C-alpha cells in the first residue's frame, strides 16, 4: 500500500509545479493581450490622465516580472490578493462562485455518472440491438449540438410560458436545498446531456473489449447469465479507463461550462473568468486559473489512485 502514498505525494508535488507553470503561462498570455486594466476598465470613458493615474495607483507601471514576483510572494503567503476592479478579495470572489460551480458540477455528475454507466452496461449487454443503436445515436446527437442549443431546446420544452422549470437559475445568496435542485435543474440536465455520451461509450467499449477474453468465455461456458458476467467479471477489469473518462468529464463540468452559465444566468466561475480576462483584472484571472488547474490536477490524481486501487495486481505489488 505504501507505494500508493508515495505516488500521491509525488503527484501532489508535481501538481504544485504544474500550478506554477500554469500561473506563469496565464500571466504571460494576459500580458500579451492588447490593452491593460486601466484602459479596459475605463473603456470609452478613458482619458490619458485618468488612465495614467489609475496605472500609478494600482502599480501597473512596474515591469511585468516585478508584478509577477509580487503576486507570487503573496501566493506563497496564502493571499490571492484583491480584484483591481472593485477591491474585493479574490478568495471571497472565487469562494462564492466556486461553491456554485461545484454544486452544479456535482448535481450534473449525480445524474450523468449513474446514467451513463447504466446505459453503457446495458448497451454492452444488448450490443448491436436496437436499444444499443438508439442509446448511441441519441447520446452522440446531444453531444454534437453546441451546448447553448441543447440549453435553448430544453428551455423551449421545459420552461417558457406554462413550463415546469424556471428558465433562469435566479436564486438568492442562500437558497434552500429544494429550491436549488428545482432552479438548477435545467442547467444540470443540459450538462448531463453534454457529458453522458463520452462516459457511456467508454463504458460500453471497455466492457465489450473484455468480452472477447478467455476468462469471460470460460464464465459463459459455465452457463453464467450475461448480466452477471458483465457486472461481476467484466466491469471490475474495465474500471480503469472508465474512471479516467469520468474524471476528465468532471473536470470539464468545473472548468468549461461558461456557455451554460450564461444561458441560465448561473453565477459560476466561468463568467467570473471571462469578465476578468476582458478587463485584464490579473489577480482574479490568476486566482481562477489556479482553481481550474487545481481541479484538473486533483481529479486526475484521484482517477489514477482509484484506477490503481481497482487493480489488485497494482495494489499488491511484489
Amino acid at each position, binding site marked *: 500500500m505504501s507505494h500508493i502514498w508515495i505516488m500521491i505525494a509525488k503527484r501532489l508535488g508535481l501538481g504544485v509545479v504544474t500550478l506554477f507553470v500554469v500561473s506563469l503561462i496565464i500571466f504571460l498570455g494576459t500580458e500579451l493581450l492588447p*490593452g491593460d486594466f486601466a484602459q479596459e476598465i475605463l473603456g470609452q470613458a478613458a482619458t490619458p490622465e485618468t488612465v495614467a493615474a489609475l496605472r500609478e495607483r494600482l502599480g501597473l507601471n512596474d515591469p511585468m516580472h516585478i508584478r509577477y514576483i509580487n503576486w507570487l510572494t503573496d501566493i506563497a503567503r496564502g493571499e490571492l490578493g484583491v480584484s483591481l476592479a472593485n477591491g474585493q478579495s479574490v478568495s471571497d470572489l472565487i469562494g462564492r462562485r466556486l461553491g456554485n460551480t461545484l454544486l452544479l458540477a456535482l448535481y450534473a455528475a449525480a445524474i450523468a455518472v449513474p446514467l451513463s454507466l447504466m446505459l453503457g452496461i446495458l448497451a454492452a449487454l444488448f450490443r448491436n440491438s436496437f436499444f444499443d443503436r438508439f442509446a448511441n445515436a441519441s447520446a452522440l446527437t446531444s453531444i454534437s449540438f453546441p451546448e447553448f442549443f441543447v440549453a435553448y431546446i430544453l428551455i423551449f420544452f421545459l420552461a417558457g410560458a406554462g413550463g415546469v422549470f424556471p428558465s433562469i437559475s435566479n436564486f438568492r445568496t442562500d437558497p434552500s436545498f429544494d429550491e436549488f435542485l428545482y432552479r438548477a435543474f435545467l442547467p444540470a440536465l443540459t450538462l448531463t446531456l453534454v457529458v453522458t455520451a463520452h462516459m457511456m461509450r467508454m463504458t460500453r467499449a471497455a466492457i465489450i473489449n473484455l468480452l472477447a477474453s478467455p476468462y469471460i468465455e470460460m464464465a459463459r461456458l459455465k452457463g453464467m447469465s450475461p448480466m452477471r458476467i458483465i457486472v461481476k467479471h467484466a466491469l471490475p477489469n474495465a474500471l480503469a479507463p472508465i474512471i479516467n473518462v469520468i474524471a476528465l468529464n468532471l473536470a470539464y463540468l468545473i472548468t468549461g461550462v461558461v456557455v451554460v452559465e450564461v444561458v441560465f444566468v448561473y453565477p459560476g466561475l466561468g463568467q467570473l473568468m471571462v469578465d476578468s480576462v476582458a478587463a485584464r483584472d490579473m489577480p482574479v484571472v490568476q486566482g481562477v486559473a489556479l482553481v481550474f488547474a487545481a481541479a484538473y490536477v486533483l481529479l486526475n490524481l484521484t482517477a489514477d489512485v482509484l484506477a490503481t486501487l481497482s487493480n489488485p495486481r497494482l495494489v499488491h505489488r511484489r
Partner: protein
Amino acid sequence: MTRFMSNGGVSRRGVLKGATAIGAAALVTPWGTPLRAQPTRGGTLRVAISTGGTTDSLDPGSWDSEFMNFQAHTRNGFLTEIATDGSIVPELAESWEATDDAVVWTFRIREGVQFHSGHVLTAEDVVASINHHRGPDNTSAAAPIVADIAEITADGMTVTVTLSAGNADFPFVMSDYHLPILPAQADGTIDPSTTDGCGPFRLDNIEFGVRADYTRHDGYWKEGLPYFDAVEQILIFDNAARQNALISGEVDYIDSADLNTVHLLERAPGINVLSITGMQHYGLPMDTRAAPFDDNNVRQALKYAINREQLVETILNGYGTVGNDHPIGPGQRFFNTELEQKEFDPDRVAFYLREAGLDSLSVDIHLADAAFAGAVDAGILYSESAAAAGVTINVVREPNDGYWSNVWMQKPFAGTYWGGRPTEDWMFATAYAEGVPWNESYWSNERFNELLVAARSELDEDIRREMYFEMQDIVANEGGTIIPMFANYVGAYSDALAHGDQIASNWRNDGHRMSERWWFAS
C-alpha cells in the same frame, strides 16, 4: 403593443433664474410626472439588466455599465434631476441661481433629507461627493465632467460653485449618474465603497455581475414614493435568456430587447415592448488629420455614400431614426430643424470626389460589434451602397476584446456609439471641441470652437438657438464623424407594471429612475 415615445423638446425656462419658479411648481409634482392612473403601493419589482460584470465596483467614479447606472438611481439622490419631459428639476438641491455670466452657481440644499443610515443631508456631503471626482491624479470617469469647477464651497445649507468659465447648463451637469450625493466622512471625503445613499431604495446586497437587492427606504423625502416595496435587479447578458425570463414571468421588466426578435416579443401575450427615441446614436468617426480624411470633400463624399434608411431598417429593425451627421437628437431643445437631411446620393459623391481631385476612393473601416450592436453588418451594408456610388470600402473586422483601447481613436476610420448628453453644449464639448480627450475624429474648426464657448454662457435663447443651429450645420457638413442613425432604447415589460404618461428619454429605464417612477397596476 409598442409604445413609441419621444422627447417633446425642453424648455430652457427654469435653468437659470427661473429655478425658484420651477422649484415652487415642483411642490405639486416634485418628480415631474403627470400621473395617468392612481399609482398603488406594494410589490417587488424584478428587473433584468443587460450589461455589467464582476468587474463593476461601488466607486461612483467607475460607474459605466447599465447595471451600475440602474443601481445609481435606485439607491442614490442627485443634486438635480432630469424630468420625464427632459427639463431639469430640483432634487437634493431645492433651488439654484447663477450670476449673469453663469460663472458662479449657488445651490440651496434641501433640509431634512435622510440617508438610509439615518444621517441627515448637509451641504458638506454635497461638496465631498463632487470633490471625489476632482483634483490631480483623479481616476474617476467623471473627472472631465467636473474639470470646469474652479471652486466648490459649503456654507450652512448652500453650496457655491465657481466655474472657470460660464456654463448656462451647469445644473444639467449635476444630474450626471457619476455624481450621487453620499455622506461625507470626518476628513471631508466620501467613502467610495459605501452602500449608503439617500435615494428611494436601500441597497441590501450587491453581488457584482450577478444581482442586487433593495428594500424601500421608508424615510424617503419624496412623499408617497417609491411605490414598490422592494427591487430585485439581476444581470442577464444573453438576449434569449433575458427575453425568456420575461416571457416565463421570472422578471417583470427587461432593459433591452434583441432587435432581431423583438417582433416576436410584441406578439407574446401580456408583454409590452417599450421603444424610446432618445439621444443614443451610432457613428463612424474618421481621423481628420490623416489622409484622405483630412480633405473635407472626401468626408462629404463618404457621408453621401451611406444609405441611412437601409441601416435603420436593417440594423435597427426600424427601431430608430436616421441621423444627419451631428449628435443632436430630434427631441432636443435646439435640434436644427432647417438642416437638409443627407441621403444616399451617388451624384454628390461623384461631385465631391471630383472636387477632391480623385478618380476613385478606397478606404478601410475598422469595426467590431463592441462599437455598437450590428456594427460589422452596418459596415458591410455601407460598403455595398458605397460601391454603387463608386467608392470602395473594405470592412476590417476587429475583435470586440480591447476595441476601445486598440481600435477606437487609434485606427483612422472606425465605429462608435454615444448615449448622448442632455444638453447640446455637453455633447459638443465632450466629443467635438478641439483637443478634448474624446474628440474621436481629431477634428478642429475655428468657427465651431468660437461658437461653442460663446453659446455656453449666452443667456438670450434666440441667439443661442441660432448658434446651435449653425454648429450643427458645421458638424454635419465639415465634421469628421458620419452619424447615420439614432437608435431607440428598446426594452419590454409585463402587463402588471404601469408607468406615467411620459417616459424619460435621457437614458434607458425611464432615465434609470423607473424604480421610483413605476408601480404595479392593481
